[in-house]
């Protein structure tokens, strides 16, 4: 208790630099989700007035760690010390009250309320039973001014741009008088000038002694603001260095530095030079432009890049799920006109969504209904009467060939495991005799054994002459499974590389929009 009081006093009086103890320190944090261990004994510390970057691939444990810091999750092992005192936050509210605020990647604002109301949501200044509007407005104005942004407190959030919303989120964090600010991919939706504005604010915060945890995939922009960098991999702490003493290259190496074991089956496919499908000049306003690639018979083409770089968006455009504004898609020499998924499916193009449950499967329907959904005509007569025996027989055929583990073809998809659900989606498109398959993160949320089976399947499909596009955020997967890889950055393809002659580092360079360095 005494210690706590001393620490609190220290925040006011002592000069920032001289403060010997870290503002926030994590010791041996461990966290488990069912069978999966997300964090193994991770330690981390944050000083006053520093910007500390946390890097790692998707799934390295960054988000879990930050959720623990901000009180969303509680650690299974280890402890947190804030200003020298061991603490335990049971909720984000507690963490916020203590002075730790998190700005989420997906913004948590209420669109139909005003900026001021959002900033003080659930903490509105009151006068008796009523909200003190004047105080609310004044407080919000003060926060926004401190940020130097030109947003009216009375404006409704839904009328703001994404960047402005980001600023409102930051203003909200400031209004909490946060001493620790966690920013998760704050620049992912900002333009260059907006990013600069944000960096100015971050410098301002540093000077005020706020500790900033900065999570970003954009390593190239970190040089402007980051003091130290911690790398996580597979839920473990890899390194913590002064940013000035390290290089982007060595950070990337440490991020991806996982030895490639036999996680991937040997390739049986024989890539040819025959072009199966070609896409040219594909564009959708403000999402991607000038997308062009060729898919060859017998190959697996990878789509690499960061989340939101346009990989999924381009695939969905080819599939007609979100029709493009411009572009030519040719399949087997024929120019296709695709305005809807129905058109694409008719031509033999299939897209396997990254979010199976949301738009890949009707999980409350039986396996057999899901398998036949894209090809009902094949199992029904003229008047649309379903030939049930035939339908079930074909579903059973795929249950056997894809080794789907299910008690019966009539089992509800909801009750299957993630890997088997994925196989059901694949079965749906194989039953439709697809010629080109876009696999969007096909192994997300699937355990290792099932992953191997999916990889084998991708290889077999390619060997049968089906064009396979593998969209993946996991670089090892891209390197282990593809023949060529198109790297996306900010809505463009920045490079198409031969997988055998490239490296994770090179792909990362293209993915972070720094092709010049990589080409050198």
């Amino acid at each position, binding site marked *: 208790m005494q210690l706590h009081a001393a620490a609190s006093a220290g925040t006011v009086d002592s000069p920032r630099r001289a403060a010997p103890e870290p503002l926030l320190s994590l010791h041996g944090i461990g966290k488990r989700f069912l069978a999966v261990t997300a964090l193994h004994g991770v330690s981390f510390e944050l000083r006053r007035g520093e910007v500390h970057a946390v890097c790692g691939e998707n799934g390295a444990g960054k988000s879990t760690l930050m959720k623990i810091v901000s009180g969303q999750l509680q650690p299974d092992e280890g402890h947190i010390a804030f200003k020298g005192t061991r603490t335990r936050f049971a909720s984000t509210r507690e963490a916020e009250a203590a002075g730790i605020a998190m700005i989420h990647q997906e913004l948590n604002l209420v669109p139909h309320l005003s900026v001021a109301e959002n900033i003080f949501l659930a903490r509105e200044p009151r006068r008796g039973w009523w909200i003190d509007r004047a105080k609310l407005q004044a407080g919000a104005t003060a926060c926004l001014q401190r940020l130097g942004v030109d947003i009216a407190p009375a404006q409704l959030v839904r009328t703001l741009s994404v960047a402005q919303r980001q600023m409102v989120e930051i203003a909200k964090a400031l209004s909490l008088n946060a001493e620790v600010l966690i920013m998760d991919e704050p620049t992912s939706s900002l333009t260059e000038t907006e990013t600069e504005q944000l960096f100015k604010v971050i410098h301002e915060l540093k000077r005020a002694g706020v500790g900033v945890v900065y999570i970003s995939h954009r390593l190239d922009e970190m040089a402007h603001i980051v003091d130290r960098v911690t790398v996580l991999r597979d839920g473990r702490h890899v390194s913590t260095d002064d940013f000035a003493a390290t290089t982007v290259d060595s950070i990337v190496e440490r991020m991806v530095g996982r030895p490639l074991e036999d996680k991937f089956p040997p390739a049986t496919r024989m890539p040819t030079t025959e072009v199966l499908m070609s896409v040219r000049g594909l564009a959708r306003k403000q999402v991607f432009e000038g997308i062009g690639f060729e898919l060859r018979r017998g190959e697996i083409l990878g789509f690499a890049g960061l989340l939101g770089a346009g990989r999924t968006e381009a695939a969905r455009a080819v599939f007609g799920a979100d029709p493009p504004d411009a572009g030519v898609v040719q399949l087997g020499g024929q120019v296709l006109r695709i305005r809807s*998924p*129905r058109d694409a499916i008719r031509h033999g193009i299939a897209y396997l969504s990254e979010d199976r449950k*949301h738009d890949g499967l009707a999980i409350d*329907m039986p396996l057999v209904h899901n398998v036949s*959904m894209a090809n009902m005509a094949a199992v029904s007569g003229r008047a649309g*009467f*379903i030939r049930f025996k035939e339908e079930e027989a074909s579903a059973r055929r795929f249950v056997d060939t894809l080794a789907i583990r299910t008690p019966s073809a009539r089992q509800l998809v909801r009750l299957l495991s993630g890997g088997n659900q994925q196989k059901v989606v694949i079965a749906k498109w194989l039953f439709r005799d697809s010629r080109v398959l876009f696999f969007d993160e096909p192994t997300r949320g699937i355990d290792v054994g099932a992953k191997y089976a999916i990889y084998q399947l991708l290889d077999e499909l390619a060997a049968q002459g089906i064009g396979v596009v593998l969209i993946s955020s996991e670089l090892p997967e891209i390197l282990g499974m593809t023949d060529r890889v198109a790297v996306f950055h900010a809505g463009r393809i920045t490079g198409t590389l031969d997988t055998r002659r490239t490296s994770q580092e090179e792909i990362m360079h293209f993915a972070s929009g720094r092709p010049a360095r990589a080409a050198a």
Partner: protein
Amino acid sequence: MTDKQKDLFQKFAALASLIALTAVFSFVSDSFFSVGNGMTVALQVTSIAYLGIGATCVIITGGIDLSVGAILALAGVVAALAVKAGLPVPLGMLCGLVVGALCGLVNGLCVTLLKLPPFIATLGMMMVARGVALQITDAKAIGGLGEGFAALGNGSLGRVVKIGTDGFPDVVFPGIPYPVLLMIALAVAVAVLLNRTTLGRFIYAIGSNTEAARLSGVDVRGVTVFAYVLSGTLAGLTGCVLMSRLVTAQPSEGLMYELDAIAAAVIGGTSLSGGVGTISGTVIGAFVIGILRNGLNMGGVSAFTQQIIIGLVILLTVWIDQMRHRR
């Protein structure tokens, strides 16, 4: 419990309550459990059942149709006006059906093309259709429609009448009323449509996961429009049958019937979040409501108390349904 057993349980629960109600009312009132009263109940249930069948299809797609009560009135008065204007009865009733179908089409287009929430689209249609029905009739009932118009609603098949020894006719068997036959035919036809055809499969698929259905190449728009057209057409049919039964076309007929239809579907296990529902369940649901009304009537329970009881029954059955899903 497997899902099959759960389904059986749900159906059994609705069916069990139906049987329990019948037993209780038979015990309380001597005249409840008789062929004559059975036919009366069946006849009373027909309107809810027709509308409920349509409502089930719409609700399975994840929508809702609030306009059927008003469409019923509009279709009924159009049919009556057409007959009054000299059209033969079958053609006049066809006009009623077409009006119903058109209203359903507008509903469907509002939902799919204008992307209005189904609740709002059909709420608008409910007011418009009712308004038109009142407008074209001057809010007056249309009478004097003749025997031909009354045949559909009042005729029956297999009526056996013996002339007694005293010379008065004695009804041995009241016959099965045409509306009841129609109800059976419709229930079977739509059940087959839902369970045995690709169209039915798509209706379930859309309700289960619209986006997955769309990305699987299902014509989501077309199928959704179909569901609303079916609901509208059945509302038109309900209007014709109901007005024929009364031999009067009332523009204010069918008030709140949409809620009875939805209640029947829900009692029968149709989920308002879509993807789940059966015609057999809805027919059972319609009978639960019908028997409650009839039995309470015979027991001398006031109309107000009836409402209270039916309201509670709906809450109870849906709560049981929720419990089933939570497990």
